[in-house]
């Protein structure tokens, strides 16, 4: 997949415009609306990357299957309601099929699970947080060639899930609930989300540790067998 630098520029410019409009036109402190708009804009370059891939039906269907598995994976642990392996599955997918694919699976599955549990003002924060956490984890792991070193994968995945997804998802609560953006009130809101984020990250780490190998092998086999998600080719 070729990266499209001009789209990044466009989305950065639009984000800047959103900040300026928020700062000057609306005058009051509009973190809530402006940040939501920026997060949606941040997904733009990735969405455009995928538009180019229309012809590759097999890859599209595999992305959609992995996203469906990520959402449905909760059902595998119907006896353990706190286990939500969505983030882990998106990370594994990205690990073997490329970080852009991982981003897409994370975003898509988060978006759809929001369809099931109700959309809200938190949707852009959760979507972007998930996509970005998966993307960063995959960039780190792929750059270091850490595939199949499952302990490293588990630790990096859990940290990204905790720090990036936790922060993004909670910043919605911060903008909504904190009366002002002083350090005290922000940390108060973030602290209330801490236990939840920690448990989510721990689950992500454990699931990554245990399934990285079996699921990864299957994804890799698919790539080799059908020549999918090959590097270096555009279009």
């Amino acid at each position, binding site marked *: 997949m070729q990266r499209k630098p001009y789209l990044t520029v466009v989305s950065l410019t639009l984000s800047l415009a959103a900040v300026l409009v928020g700062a000057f036109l609306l005058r009051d402190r509009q973190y809530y609306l402006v940040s939501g708009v920026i997060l949606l804009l941040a997904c733009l370059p990735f969405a455009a990357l995928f538009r180019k891939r229309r012809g590759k039906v097999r890859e599209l269907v595999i*992305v959609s299957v992995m996203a469906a598995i990520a*959402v449905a994976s909760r059902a595998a642990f119907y006896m353990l309601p706190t286990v939500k392996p969505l983030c882990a599955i998106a990370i594994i997918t990205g690990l073997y099929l490329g970080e852009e694919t991982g981003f897409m699976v994370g975003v898509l599955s988060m978006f759809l699970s929001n369809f099931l549990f109700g959309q809200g003002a938190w949707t852009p924060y959760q979507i972007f947080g998930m996509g970005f956490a998966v993307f960063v984890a995959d960039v780190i792991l792929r750059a270091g060639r850490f595939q199949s070193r499952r302990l490293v994968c588990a630790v990096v995945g859990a940290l990204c899930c905790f720090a990036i997804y936790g922060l993004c998802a909670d910043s919605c609560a911060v903008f909504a609930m904190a009366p002002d953006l002083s350090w005290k009130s922000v940390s108060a809101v973030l602290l209330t989300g801490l236990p939840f984020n920690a448990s989510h990250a721990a689950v992500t780490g454990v699931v990554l540790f245990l399934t990285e190998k079996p699921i990864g092998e299957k994804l890799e086999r698919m790539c080799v067998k059908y020549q999918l998600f090959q590097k270096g080719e555009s279009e």
Partner: protein
Amino acid sequence: MRSAFAGSHPALNFLFFASVVAFGMVFFHPVFLGISFAAAFAYGVRLRGRRMLKTVFCLLLPTLLFVVLLGAAFNHYGVTTLFVLPNGNRVTLESIVHSLVTGGMVLTVFLWFVCYNAVVTTDKFLHVFGRAFPTGALLVSMTLRFLPIMRRRMQRIFEAQRGIGRGEGGRLRNGLHALSILVTWSLEGAVDTADSMKSRGYGIRGRTNYTRFFWTRRDAALSVLVLLGDALVIAGIVCGQTRAIYDPYICLPARTAFSYALYIGYALLCFMPLLLDLTEDYKWNRSR
């Protein structure tokens, strides 16, 4: 509950919710907030009946109380001291009102999203965005279709596992094992699905989508009304009518004839779906 607004064109539904949610997130002014809250609450009750009342009183009002307590405990600006806490911090009227307004804003947006989820179903969402992002819309609808399939496969995997005596003990391991089986099964199927799509002509130019939504004259008229309402409110924002300051003292813009016109326009905008529903109900009952 059948709603005439929910039966109108998805683009109109989207335009309306985009307007009220954006305005709902922006206004700190108590009058605008109150109007929006009342409209979202009333329409939510109309759409979801008793469940809405339950959501509001059991979940949302306690949350609001929590936010107000948090605000009063952490913020000590303002000139009107109500009382002094044992550790010497002041609890002020301004900080309480400000937290109430902030919390009310979140509550209002939440209520609008409750209405949104009842009105804008997945097929409507795909109808609005499918043309602009065909690949994205395909991905979303395909994944939605895969969800029930995955759930059914998962059940069959569990049944088979139980049949060969692997069901008991080590629950996490069982779940992960089932997940791994599901991946194997579905990835092979995905390639078949893709080949089948291609051989049936996916991606050929000039194909159209089936739609069951039609743009009527009423949709056009209502969209124009919503846009006019948006324009009026934006004019109000530019004129500073929607500003509200809570620090150091509560200061609202002076009320003029324009502000009252603005209040009425905003109320008409927010109550539009409910008014439409009630008019349709009235017509229906009279024609019976």
